[in-house]
């Protein structure tokens, strides 16, 4: 009898363990970083994490009242189905259908990101949100007006009260709630992650793709986050957008843009800072055939052995893309904690 009880207890214990693992990313009991991720960069001491703040932030993220005419929300250009990029949009249209100049980036694992925007112009996530809100081609609104709008909504007064202890709505609280939601969007449950955890195996094509990826792509798209967060000129034909130079005013930064993470890259088309490529085939074809050296800042990795770009056969490209698709995290793409409704 006692043996039986022990046995049942053991089984229950295991089920619970499994359940806990399935619940990753663990964002319901404080912000628990995945063990194989680097140190969190977001300042959790300044803005302690809570589910209440996350919920408030989620509501704000999907609230069009953040824009001047109440038509554009953060979620308008950052769709969960597209890993919070803007599906099918080279650049996004904001208020009054005005177009921006750069591709709306995917949003996930922001707690580990040192600098925001394609040019890294913002270094504190809390000070990021003011940008799309004030930008005349995005939401064209001011923070004080947004705060005034929110103050007229009893639901928000209650949510701020739950999140911060009083119903006072301030710019700092507004920013912190949005940041809390954004850092909660963790993507670490792709097939590749399960492969790393020994829970699944890669197909032979995917495995070959991983090996090729490590040889040809991982110098920049490095580590568990699949980016080294550096700014690089990847040999695109140049436009009037000087990239990182606009922020740093250092000549050698001209035409450099942030290396994006490749997690969920299957879902975050179109690609590049200006969204010029629609498919991963086009992206790899650029690296193999179309890298141009019209500036002095082309990355040295793309001009090895007097050859421009990264040599890849069609077969190799197929395998690399097959591997890249193992970085798609369907749990994150469908996680209701990040959804509008």
């Amino acid at each position, binding site marked *: 009898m006692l043996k039986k009880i022990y046995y049942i207890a053991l089984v229950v214990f295991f089920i619970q363990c499994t359940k806990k693992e399935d619940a990753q990313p663990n964002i319901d009991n404080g912000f628990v970083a995945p063990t194989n991720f680097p140190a969190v960069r977001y300042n959790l001491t300044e803005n302690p994490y809570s589910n209440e703040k996350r919920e408030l932030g989620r509501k704000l993220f999907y609230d069009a009242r953040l824009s001047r005419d109440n038509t554009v929300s953060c979620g308008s250009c950052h769709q969960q189905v597209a890993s919070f990029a803007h599906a099918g949009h080279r650049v996004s249209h904001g208020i009054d259908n005005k177009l921006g100049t750069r591709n709306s980036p995917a949003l996930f694992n922001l707690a580990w990101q040192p600098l925001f925007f394609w040019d*890294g112009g913002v*270094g504190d996530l809390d000070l990021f949100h*003011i940008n799309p809100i004030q930008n005349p081609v995005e939401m064209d609104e001011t923070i004080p007006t947004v705060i005034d709008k929110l103050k007229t909504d009893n639901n928000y007064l209650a949510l701020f009260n739950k999140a911060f202890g009083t119903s006072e709505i301030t710019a700092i609280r507004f920013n912190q709630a949005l940041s809390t939601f954004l850092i909660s969007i963790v993507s670490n449950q792709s097939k590749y992650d399960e492969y790393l955890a020994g829970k699944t195996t890669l197909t032979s094509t995917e495995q070959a793709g991983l090996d090729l990826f490590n040889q040809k792509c991982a110098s920049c798209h490095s580590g568990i986050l699949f980016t080294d967060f550096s700014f690089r000129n990847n040999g695109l034909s140049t436009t009037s957008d000087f990239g990182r130079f606009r*922020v740093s*005013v*250092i000549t050698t930064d001209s035409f450099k843009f942030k290396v994006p993470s490749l997690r969920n890259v299957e879902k975050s088309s179109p690609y590049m800072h200006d969204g010029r490529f629609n498919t991963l085939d086009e992206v790899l074809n650029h690296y193999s055939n179309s890298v141009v050296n019209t500036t002095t800042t082309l990355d040295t990795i793309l001009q090895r052995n007097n050859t421009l770009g990264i040599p890849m056969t069609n077969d190799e490209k197929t395998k690399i893309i097959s591997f890249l698709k193992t970085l798609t995290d369907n749990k994150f793409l469908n996680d209701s904690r990040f959804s509008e409704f």
Partner: protein
Amino acid sequence: MKKSHLFILSIAIVTFIASCKKESTPEGPGMVAMEFDNRAGSADLELNTTWYKNANNDSMNFSLFKYYVSNFIFTKEDGSTYVVPKESCYFLIDEADDVSQTVEFPDVPAGKYTSVTFTIGVDSLKSTAPQSERTGVLDVTTHADMYWVWNSGYIFVKTEGTFSQAAGADFMYHVGGFGGYSSPTQNNLKTVTLTFPGAPVSFGSNNHKHIHTFVDALKVVNGTTNISVPTTPVVMGGPNAPAIANNYKNMFVVDHIEAE
């Protein structure tokens, strides 16, 4: 005892007590006010109404002149210093706001001082501090006109106006750049030291002082690089900003110090 002896003794006692008193209560810290009196060359700066000539002989009519000064340090004649506490060392001087033009340091220890050192702009530590530590003049919400959101950082010196009666002849010089977060960006922070005329000057509880500082707005465009305003009317950060910062670092001079 002779009367004369008694007299000498009493004088000695009085002197003794007086000297004791002096030693037991040395002069305490005093108020030092510093006025930033904005000028254009040798004339007082008048916004919107008056035309001035820069070194390049361009006409300039200023509509706005604002700048951050921070991290004040007073140096004594023996080389020791008084560092103004962090929580009260950031100021935004605005030509359109008289009150902003005099800043006060209420607790400067008594002593003989020779110079004041300060930063033009907002240092990198404060520029990257959490929003909750940026109150008052550093609140990026209420002073949004002095903050670049797309390239996070304060505008250190901002001046605008016109260089001709013709329409659209506007000049705008906005300079910021604290050096960046984790990846370097342009750094236009400047630290200046102003020597006091007639130094050393006594500060302390018995010596409240008023430092009258002249700030020459024309030195935004005059200096090592004389800017042609019609040729380069707009600088908002970017490649021309360092030249302007190198010019305006010389725009401050202590004209005189008087009793407060």
